């Protein structure tokens, strides 16, 4: 059950940060394996790149880039909370800032792709 005490921006930011970090960590070995194909031949790498041209895979890649932006924005939030001097009103600002940077990132990717 969703606890009422979790429903505030800081908690949602932390959940988004965690899930995006998890997804990235699972993606990376695959990313590295694909790039490693170039060891065999350029053609092997090309065949995977061709595969990624499918619409569904493109959407997944696009999602991945979004996750990266998300993790980056929320990661900056944590670093700001831990390493910058702040007081209570600033906490909201930092969360808003992280939210805004994430939104800007998402918008950027929507426009770009």
């Amino acid at each position, binding site marked *: 059950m969703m606890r*009422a*005490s*979790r429903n505030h921006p800081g908690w949602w930011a*932390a959940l988004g940060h965690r899930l995006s970090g998890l997804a990235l960590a699972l993606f990376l070995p695959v990313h590295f394996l694909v790039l490693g194909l170039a060891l065999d031949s350029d053609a092997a790498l090309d065949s995977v790149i061709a595969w990624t041209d499918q619409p569904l895979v493109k959407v997944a890649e696009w999602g991945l880039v979004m996750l990266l932006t998300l993790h980056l924005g929320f990661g900056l939030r*944590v670093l700001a*909370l*831990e390493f910058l001097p702040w007081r209570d009103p600033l906490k909201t600002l930092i969360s808003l800032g992280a939210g805004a940077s994430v939104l800007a990132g998402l918008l950027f990717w929507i426009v770009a792709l």
Partner: protein
Amino acid sequence: MQDTADREEMLTVEIWRGREDGALQTYRVPRRESQTVLDVVTWVQRNEEPALAYRFACRVGMCGSCAMQVNGKPRWTCRTHVSRVAENGLLRIEPLANLPRIKDLATDMAPFFEKWQGARGRHEPTRTRHEPMAPVSSESPARKAANAGIECINCAVCYAACDVVGWDENYLGPAALNRAWTLANDERDADKAGLLQAVSQSGGCHSCHSHGSCVEHCPVGLNPTAGIAGLKRMTLAALMKGEL
């Protein structure tokens, strides 16, 4: 329109009865002006359920003994007005989260206080009572940092709100670490190294993910997240100087 003059307005109140394997029981409680959640619980105990177990003492937000979950959020019940928390005339009152339940609304607070000890939450003096008092400037940055955290009433509201406490049984929690932070900034404390070691164990300050649920719920407006971040920086500095 309902005429409150002849028909009393009523609250529907669900209260946890029993231990871990208890259940919510529903009561009808008359609505009063300026009524607090603690008033509601007391009304039920006096009029409906004499055996209802719950804790309170000061009733003015000083002692920290009356905290409970109210509609899913931890609150000091003596200072929480029904008008602020009732949802369509409904209140759900449960024992404080993240603590073992004893009976009804009373939890076992022992783990909470043991963790204060775990965070080395007791003052180690630099002087004996036979020496003059240490002069401490109220203007020094360290004293200001300590002052910002010393009004804690040990209510465990933050402890109940913190997810990491629920996920990791070793985690010392916001209140104990906030206490450690005030001591770390106290010029009269003699054992800074021991303190920084205590908060660097598994389950110490580095386990905090800055969710901020503690800040969100602390009834006296303290900011444990900021204090814990301070401990993180202090332990890093000690680590890099080889003192940890």
